[in-house]
């Protein structure tokens, strides 16, 4: 301690002794050592001087009239609070119990009479060192408290900023149950959910390696990509590619993010899932029928964009099915003896859920029972998603208010995709973006997205690829449909899908005409039940049945031309 040398002399020393001559001697000795001395003739004076003079060290005679040394010591120790002011008893007492009494009263040591200059000097120096060490430790502790307080404050602010970017989206939807610690972002866990413009949901759970600020910083671009892209209609694979590419660029080599992406389609009753490094997800179809969906990919932020595989696995589901996803924290929970909860714990909890218990509650309950804690660590995230009827799902609200008429009102645009691009590129976000430049359409982004995606999917799957939609409605056909889709896509040649947009401003609002034309064979639209039906009824498993019904419901008019490979949709919006 460098400061000790500078601090040793002069010290302010309070002495108290009722013997005037003894006091004179002690005072003289201490002054000779270079210290400043304040003196008292009894305990009461000593306590008063201690308050007014704030000495560094106190030397007290044990036996004094008018409050003896012991009592004065007790007062002084109380007054010094956190500060360590060494208190040395000067005494010619020799009985062990008397000496013990001095220590009990708060004395830090003894100095015996008669005085010995060398002993006095040694004692004062020794206790001064102790005082300085205590002060240094207290300062460090105070500094640490202060730093910690600041850190917590900063985390709080950072959390606020983070929440603005990485809001919980639609995690509060009635078909989602989840547990995520409020400060989990600093433990590296994230959980996001967003409704998709054309219906359905996207859910992402992630677990960054490492803790604290680095993990939180990594989480920001993930949140931004997820919510930004999900709202624009990008699919799960697009978003995964974007997140991976960003993380590879910004994270140090040894940091990455384990994650799952779930694309939920309530209408088709299917889940598209991607699991890179998180524990098995569980799809529960009934209390006894369940399957695990293990990680099949490397975590995000490791592979370069050209190596990254964002292929999602398609899983058929039924209303009422539940998907349980979790981060490592669930498996790593420990009981009092350090045993981990593990996969067995999860399996046990799910199996015990039975008929009447929600698997989320069963798992949470089992973790609580296992850890013996009501509150868990920050890095435990658990989410359970239930498949529901389309009607019960959340839809994007008309989020943006119509504020001004700024933006294009009279315009045309043609966009054509050809051959291999048909299989590789999803044009919907781009097309949606063009339309969203019109403020009046922006309010209707969900409807526009639905229209465009139905038109595009019909044109691609039934027009260009000539896939019969009946296949999709049987479990065997479902797999066949998707494997055939992939096969045919890879062989597409001489094909196109062309979108033409034409927007006009009207006195009452605006009119968007969308013509979608493809190079396929078309279909017999003259005899199509949905197009013939006066009532907009669910048409059953026929070609484009659901899609056409949806388009018909949203649009002012739907007209097919040529051999059925050209369709014109008129959509109107109002001020």
């Amino acid at each position, binding site marked *: 301690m460098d400061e000790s040398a500078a601090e040793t002399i002069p010290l302010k020393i309070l002495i108290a002794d009722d013997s005037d001559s003894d006091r004179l001697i002690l005072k003289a000795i201490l002054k000779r050592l270079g210290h400043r001395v304040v003196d008292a003739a009894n305990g009461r004076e000593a306590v008063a001087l201690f308050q007014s003079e704030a000495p560094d060290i106190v030397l007290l005679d044990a036996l004094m009239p008018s409050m003896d040394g012991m009592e004065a010591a007790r007062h002084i120790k109380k007054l010094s609070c956190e500060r360590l002011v060494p208190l040395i008893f000067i005494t010619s007492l020799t009985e062990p119990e008397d000496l013990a009494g001095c220590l009990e009263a708060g004395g830090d040591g003894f100095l015996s009479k008669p005085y010995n200059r060398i002993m006095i000097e040694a004692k004062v120096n020794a206790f001064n060192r102790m005082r300085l060490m205590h002060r240094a430790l207290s300062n460090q502790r105070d500094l640490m408290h202060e730093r910690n307080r600041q850190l917590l404050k900063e985390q709080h602010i950072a959390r606020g900023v983070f929440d603005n970017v990485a809001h919980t989206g639609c995690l509060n939807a009635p078909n989602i149950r989840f547990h995520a610690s409020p400060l989990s972002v600093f433990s590296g866990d994230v959980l996001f959910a967003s409704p998709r413009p054309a219906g359905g949901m996207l859910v992402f759970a992630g677990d960054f*390696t*490492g803790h604290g600020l680095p993990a939180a910083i990594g989480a920001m671009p993930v949140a931004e990509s997820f919510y930004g892209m999900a709202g624009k209609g990008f699919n799960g694979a697009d978003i995964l590619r974007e997140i991976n590419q960003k993380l590879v660029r910004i994270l140090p*080599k*040894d*940091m*990455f993010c*384990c994650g799952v992406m779930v694309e939920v389609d309530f209408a088709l009753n299917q889940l598209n899932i991607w699991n*890179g*490094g*998180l*524990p098995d997800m569980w799809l529960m179809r009934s209390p006894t029928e369940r399957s695990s969906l*293990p*990680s*099949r*990919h*490397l*975590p995000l932020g*490791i592979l370069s964009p050209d*190596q990254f595989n964002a292929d999602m696995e398609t899983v058929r589901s039924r209303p009422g099915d539940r998907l349980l996803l979790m981060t*490592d924290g669930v498996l790593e929970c420990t009981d009092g003896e350090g045993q981990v909860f593990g996969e067995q714990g999860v399996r046990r909890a799910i199996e015990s859920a039975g008929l009447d218990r929600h698997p989320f509650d069963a798992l949470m309950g089992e973790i609580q029972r296992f850890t013996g804690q009501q509150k868990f660590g920050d890095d435990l995230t658990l989410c359970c998603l239930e498949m529901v009827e389309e009607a019960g799902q959340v839809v994007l609200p008309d989020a943006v208010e119509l504020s001004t008429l700024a933006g294009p009102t009279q315009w045309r645009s043609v966009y054509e995709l050809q051959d291999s691009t048909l299989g590789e590129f999803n044009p919907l976000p781009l097309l949606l973006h063009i339309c969203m430049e019109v403020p009046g359409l922006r309010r209707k982004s969900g409807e526009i997205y639905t229209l465009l995606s139905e038109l595009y999917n019909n044109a691609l799957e039934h027009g260009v690829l000539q896939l019969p939609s009946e296949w999709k409605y049987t479990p065997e056909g479902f797999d066949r449909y998707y494997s055939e889709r992939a096969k045919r896509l890879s062989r597409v040649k001489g094909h196109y899908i062309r979108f033409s947009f034409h927007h006009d401003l009207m006195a009452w609002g605006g009119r968007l005409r969308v013509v979608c034309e493809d190079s396929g064979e078309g279909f017999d639209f003259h005899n199509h039940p949905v197009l013939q039906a006066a009532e907009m009824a669910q048409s059953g498993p026929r070609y484009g049945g659901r899609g056409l019904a949806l388009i018909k419901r949203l649009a002012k008019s739907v007209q097919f031309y040529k051999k059925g490979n050209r369709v014109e949709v008129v959509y109107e919006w109002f001020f």
Partner: protein
Amino acid sequence: MPIETHRSRDGRSLTIKIEGRFDFSTHQAFRDAYEHGGRDVSGYVVDLSDATYLDSSALGMLLLLRDHAGGDSADIVIEKCNNDVRKILTISNFEQLFTIR
């Protein structure tokens, strides 16, 4: 020492053996092991026969080693993992990046 290294007779291969917990506490030692492993080393063997535990920061260290050893062209074998360790490597699909045996 939780980390021991030895080079093959021809000096081309460096074996790094980790004992006990392979986690953040071994970060510096693991780095030192491959950074000071010698210049003409062309292949690495990470021997986990005595590793009892592996966490995500250990996975990060393996990625650092991979980067050090040439990224996509790195020749790294991770061997003799116990079941728990193997499981962690499998969940993260690290067999796509390393030869695990």
